[in-house]
């Protein structure tokens, strides 16, 4: 089957069609709701105050050539990737160490459990004080968003490995290092994938909020990321741009999750072919 044919099949499949119809209906209802005053003579509550999709699209089309808009994308994406990578780089080894060593677990677990319930956004003021640049404080808060989720998932995954696998590997002559590399790591991989995709979602929530609160870190509106883009549009009174910013975040978050899903699927082939 050729690529185009496959895409065509996907779009015209029953579920694809259903999704398209649902999306279209949503946009049409939104359009009607937004233009309710103009078309029906009454302003519908809530939806009546939202800019219509057609005008949003028009504003969006105008923004496509705007460098500042794309810079906002890049800024947010960069912060998300920085915070997320740091969370993975520190969280995965930490989690594995906690799972492997009872002593280490005993030392670190209480502090982690105490810090974990604190919402990342509650860290914003202290990280602004703590870190020299605003960029670093945003990255740090973003990091926290994913960090705890990654650690908890890795620890949980590694600790729930069935002892049979260790016994079998040991009997077949595997060394401690072999057992770590060939049993602990692959057995924990599915939990790492789950933890990272949940963490990625939280990262996007956190980065946008952090950008709004901290003023985006950039000197101008264009350097402030998508969160600041929305906030700036709100202050500037461009409601269409607010919606454009929101949808942009939706797309960016979805794209990141999709990439992670693909990578996760590639890393855990034994879970895909069932």
């Amino acid at each position, binding site marked *: 089957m050729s690529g185009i044919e496959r895409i065509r099949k996907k779009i015209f499949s029953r579920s694809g069609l259903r999704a398209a119809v649902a999306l279209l209906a949503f946009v049409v209802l939104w359009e009607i709701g937004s233009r309710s005053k103009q078309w029906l003579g009454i302003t519908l509550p809530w939806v009546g105050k939202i800019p219509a999709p057609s005008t949003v699209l028009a504003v969006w089309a105008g923004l496509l050539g705007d460098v500042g808009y794309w810079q906002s994308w890049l800024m947010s994406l960069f912060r998300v990737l920085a915070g997320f990578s740091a969370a993975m780089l520190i969280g995965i080894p930490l989690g594995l160490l906690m799972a492997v060593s009872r002593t280490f677990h005993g030392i670190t677990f209480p502090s982690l459990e105490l810090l974990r319930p604190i919402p990342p956004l509650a860290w914003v003021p202290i990280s602004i004080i703590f870190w020299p640049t605003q960029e670093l404080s945003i990255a740090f808060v973003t990091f926290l968003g994913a960090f705890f989720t990654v650690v908890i998932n890795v620890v949980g995954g590694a600790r729930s490995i069935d002892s049979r696998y260790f*016994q079998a590997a040991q*009997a077949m002559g*595997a060394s401690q290092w072999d057992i770590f590399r060939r049993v602990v790591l692959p057995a924990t991989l599915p939990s790492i994938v789950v933890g990272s995709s949940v963490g990625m979602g939280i990262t996007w929530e956190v980065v946008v909020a952090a950008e709004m609160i901290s003023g985006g870190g950039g000197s101008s509106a264009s350097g402030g990321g998508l969160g600041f883009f929305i906030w700036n549009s709100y202050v500037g009174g461009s409601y269409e741009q607010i919606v454009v910013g929101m949808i942009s975040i939706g797309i960016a978050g979805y794209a990141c999750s999709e990439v992670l899903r693909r990578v996760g699927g590639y890393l855990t082939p034994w879970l895909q072919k069932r």
Partner: protein
Amino acid sequence: MSSVPIPPADQKSGSQGAIRIDDVVKIYDPDGAAVMAVDHCSLDIAAGEICMIVGPSGCGKTTLLNAIAGFHSITSGRIFLDGELLCGPDKPLADPGSDRIVVFQNGALFPWKTNLDNVAFGPLMKGKLGKNEIYEKARGMMADAGLSGAENNYPGEVSSGLRRRVEIVRALMNSPKVLLFDEPYRALDSLTKSVMHEALLEIYYKNKVTIFFITHDLEEAIFLGHRLVIMTTRPCRPKKLLEVDIPHPRDYGVLTSKRFRELMEETSAVVHEEAKKSFAAGEKEG
């Protein structure tokens, strides 16, 4: 207790794997309340014998298996393999080793490795042979067991019966002296089970290893075993030994033979009695 003589340890491969269990006691003491799982158990298993350990679920059979495999310690007594001490008073926990491979109740194939990689795992860990040699041998062994089509599948993609066969081949790749089976066919339906039994015997006839096989299924025990050791319920101790005088090689025709029925009759009362005791004990505990 010893009815089969133990051959000397220095015999050529294929006739190694004599196990001597000498007055072994295992007391679990998790929170002060001592529970005796194995009670002064002595048993001699000859090299190349299929010894079926029969007893009700939870009677302590698995404790014995874990002691031989080196997964759990014993409280007192000794266990020997070919005259060499595995565990005893000064060394309550045997070292796990590739001379004794366990085939687990729920299977222990690594789900993240293909069947072929699973089969090649043991020799790869030992690093004595080259990679190509190991994989060649693995393919050969899988082909012998009729598993050629499943080499590149993950264990999760094939049927549970096939998985068990892959696991046995993985075990055999380590050239073990003893295979320790912990009710491996428990979860299988009876049709699959009968196929598995014949497949196991077929593999056994090609690779004469000692088989220590735990089951609570009497039919399975008589069909496969040279000898049955019927255990008392917790604490576990041999209650009755039975030689199965049906000649090997066997196939499923044996099940309908007169001798098979006689042996079933001879043993089922004993097993049933222990099962009832176990059930009553379970009710008390619950």
